[in-house]
């Protein structure tokens, strides 16, 4: 920060200049943006304009004809997406979305109002693609695409978590996520990504997962889970990688192999699969379900996700179960079938334990682990001891993508209510379809933008605080790996004492295994209720 003179410092009734947003250039603030992508990350996947660059530099090392590339790209996408063309044309700026964005609510930057975030691009669209914009310019709300405008687009495209909360309130269903997705595509034509997305994409391309975990590392990781589980339960849980002929392929976000909170969720899956004797295999080649390609371009998303079906075909499995992840499920629920289908080499999913047909997944043959588990519980196929979770007073954070891009609201609740005795809902305007984002979604869960994450997560944390104070809630359950990683930092800042846990961690705790020893600790190695050291 520049040194301020005393008289400036004392000028505390500071107000920003009253210029219109078009005339207020964006100031790219550190702590708000993520580092730009590395050269090698783009090279790995063959993306254009791979070079070393830095956001803080004046010169972003763009190709000479960057403007042309951007506008051509815009034109192409307008013709390929009805959604995009419509959303450029029909917004009436009624302001219903303005105060629905967590970044605006928590941070107060007017350009984070969804309507304005989209206007950043609409103004360019009008200038180059509408008659009125060409003729009337600013009067028609049009503006030139300049270097600074491009930077502004980049800055705000990476301050949107594509959570779709605004689209819920829009009378025409305008979806800012759709706009952000396509703006990011356009920016990627110029080599403008962030490393927190580009790096994982490159890793996932080559090694099958975002973290870059190699096959033997994955094996060792799951081996260590196996050992931990044996210590805790006395039962040796079996698992396999790349096993041909298994009935089911299980795909989960690789963060669960890496992040300690995610680890425990994964251990929950392992216990469950073992207990019901599910014929399931993991794959090292698709050791990732979460798809950061989706935060890059629809093509990149497809390039990464197609591997899942290819692997299912190679291993000759019958169908697929997917783990707890947010945007992975948006992709699987709304995109994957369209990209890759028809999936006629797999069978319509039927639970081998209960015989339930998953009618809602009969075409793409992929079932959510929560749907699968909720069905097991409903049919009484697993024995549960919810009192093992009695130390936890639980609330559920609905993941944005699962809520507003899929509509899976009851399944995780059904599960939690069966495996925990203490469940409390946050206020209604902060859950289910109204859920507030963790503030770190869509690839924004880096560390360098911690300030952005803390503001963006404020509305969520505020609701958690409410149930913490009112009911003594100490556990924030969720079904998303980005949540598990990002929410813990958020809680540490806004709501200390609240611990973040995956739903299947709670399942793993409550699940009574055949032949298990008397458990004294939960899956994290913490004493169970009544088993504390005297």
């Amino acid at each position: 920060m520049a040194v301020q003179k005393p008289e400036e410092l004392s000028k505390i009734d500071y107000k920003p200049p009253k210029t219109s947003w078009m005339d207020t250039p964006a100031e790219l603030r550190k702590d708000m943006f993520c580092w730009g992508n590395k050269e090698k990350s783009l090279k790995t996947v063959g993306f254009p304009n791979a070079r070393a660059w830095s956001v803080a530099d004046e010169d972003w090392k763009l190709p000479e004809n960057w403007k042309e590339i951007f506008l051509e790209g815009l034109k192409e996408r307008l013709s390929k997406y009805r959604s995009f063309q419509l959303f450029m044309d029909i917004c009436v700026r009624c302001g219903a979305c303005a105060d629905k964005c967590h970044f605006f609510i928590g941070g107060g930057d007017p350009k984070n109002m969804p309507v304005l975030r989209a206007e950043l691009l609409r103004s360019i669209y009008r200038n180059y693609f509408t008659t009125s914009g060409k003729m009337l310019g600013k009067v028609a709300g049009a503006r030139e695409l300049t270097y600074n405008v491009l930077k502004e687009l980049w800055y705000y495209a990476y301050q949107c978590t594509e959570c779709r909360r605004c689209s819920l309130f829009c009378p025409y269903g305008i979806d800012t996520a759709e706009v952000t997705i396509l703006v990011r595509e356009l920016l990627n034509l110029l080599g403008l990504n962030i490393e927190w997305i580009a790096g994982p994409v490159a890793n996932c391309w080559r090694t099958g997962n975002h973290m870059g975990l190699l096959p033997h590392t994955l094996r060792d990781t799951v081996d260590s889970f196996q050992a931990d589980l044996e210590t805790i339960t006395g039962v040796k849980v079996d698992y396999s990688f790349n096993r041909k002929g298994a009935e089911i392929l299980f795909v989960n976000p690789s963060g669960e192999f890496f992040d300690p909170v995610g680890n425990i969720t994964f251990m929950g899956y392992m216990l469950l699969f073992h207990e019901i004797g599910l014929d399931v295999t993991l794959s090292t080649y698709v050791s990732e379900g979460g798809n950061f390609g989706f935060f890059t371009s629809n093509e990149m998303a497809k390039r990464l996700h197609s591997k899942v079906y290819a692997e299912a075909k190679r291993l000759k499995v019958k169908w697929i179960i997917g783990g707890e992840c947010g945007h992975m499920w948006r992709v699987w629920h709304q995109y994957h079938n369209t990209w890759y289908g028809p999936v006629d080499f797999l069978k319509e999913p039927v639970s081998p334990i209960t015989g339930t047909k998953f009618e809602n997944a009969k075409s793409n043959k992929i079932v959510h682990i929560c749907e699968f588990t909720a069905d097991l519980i409903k049919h009484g196929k697993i024995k549960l001891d919810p009192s093992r979770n009695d130390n936890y007073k639980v609330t559920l954070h609905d993941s944005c993508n699962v809520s507003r891009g899929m509509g899976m609201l009851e399944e995780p609740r059904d599960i939690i209510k069966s495996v925990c005795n203490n469940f409390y809902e946050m206020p209604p305007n902060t859950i289910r379809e109204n859920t507030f984002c963790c503030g770190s979604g869509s690839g924004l869960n880096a560390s360098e933008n911690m300030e952005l994450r803390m503001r963006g997560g404020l509305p969520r944390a505020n609701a958690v605080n409410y149930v913490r104070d009112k009911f003594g809630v100490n556990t924030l359950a969720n079904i998303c790996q980005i949540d598990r990683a990002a929410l813990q930092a958020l809680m540490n800042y806004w709501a200390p004492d609240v611990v973040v846990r995956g739903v299947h961690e709670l399942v793993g705790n409550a699940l009574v295994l055949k032949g298990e020893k008397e458990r004294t600790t939960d899956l994290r190695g913490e004493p169970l209720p009544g088993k504390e050291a005297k």
Partner: protein
Amino acid sequence: MSFGLSLWLSFFAVAVLVLVALFGVEAAHLNYLFGVIIPYAAFAIFIVGIIYRFLKWAARPVPFRIPTTAGQGKSLPWIKQNKIDNPSTALGAFVRMIFEVLLFRSLFRNTRTELRGPILSYASAKWLWIAALAFHYSFLIILIRHLRLFIEPVPFLVKTVEKLDSFFQIHLLGAPLLYITNVALLAAVTYLLLRRVVIPTLRYISLPADYFPLFLILSIGITGALMRYFYKVNVVGIKELAMGLINFSPKIPEGIGVLFYIHLFLVSTLFAYFPFSKLTHMVGVFLSPTRNLANNNRAVRHVNPWNYPVKVHTYEEYEDEFREFMKDAGIPVEKE
């Protein structure tokens, strides 16, 4: 463009329109131009423009099935689906659209909160929904009422609407019966305009393209009301003109009064402006992929017409790179 400039520019644009009609008719006596040619042209632009717009949008493919889901989706048999807010069938999506288009359901969400709190906060959110409903329905009813000018004998529907619209039987100082929709339209437009001026957030996001149609519709409403309640115009003459227009044998009756020409010119402007503006949301809303699609892509595959093959890092390439690691870790491989 600053707020003040946007606002005044729009205001003056409408003022200029009024003056153009005033001088055009009063001074230049261009009654035929303003009474026949411009209305015909405006209506033609409206029809062609709207069809063009619709076709342009409809020609764009819908590559992905991306409904915004606003309730429990179709899942296991014992889990209750919210069939309106998260439809799994085309019929469900149709019902959702009905709610959206007729009742502005998404806008209504603004108010949906079960929390106790100061009443004002909820009311202020609800006002937008109420004003929007009042505005759009008043406009529709007023349009229907205007059909009496174009059809002889006046249809039963129009008469019924008129009767209902003047249900309260209020006479303004001896003027004809007061239409509820006249009041509602003017009040709603005034509200919609004021909130853009008064609320800083709205002021910040508003463009001339937001103020202009509001001023335009406001002046249409005012000129219409003036004609009905205060300055008597020659209704018989107006009907003659309207019937002439509709039967393609236009003629200009005498003594209609300049106020009518101003009203007609403003309406013509609105019609001609419509297809080029945000007002096309009236058509666009029907095509919005986040609302008009069923949320069932796992059960019924949606086809993307421009789907194309992409380069994928194949399993073979993967195994070739990591085969030794895999073998060491006891993970099965294709080629030993």
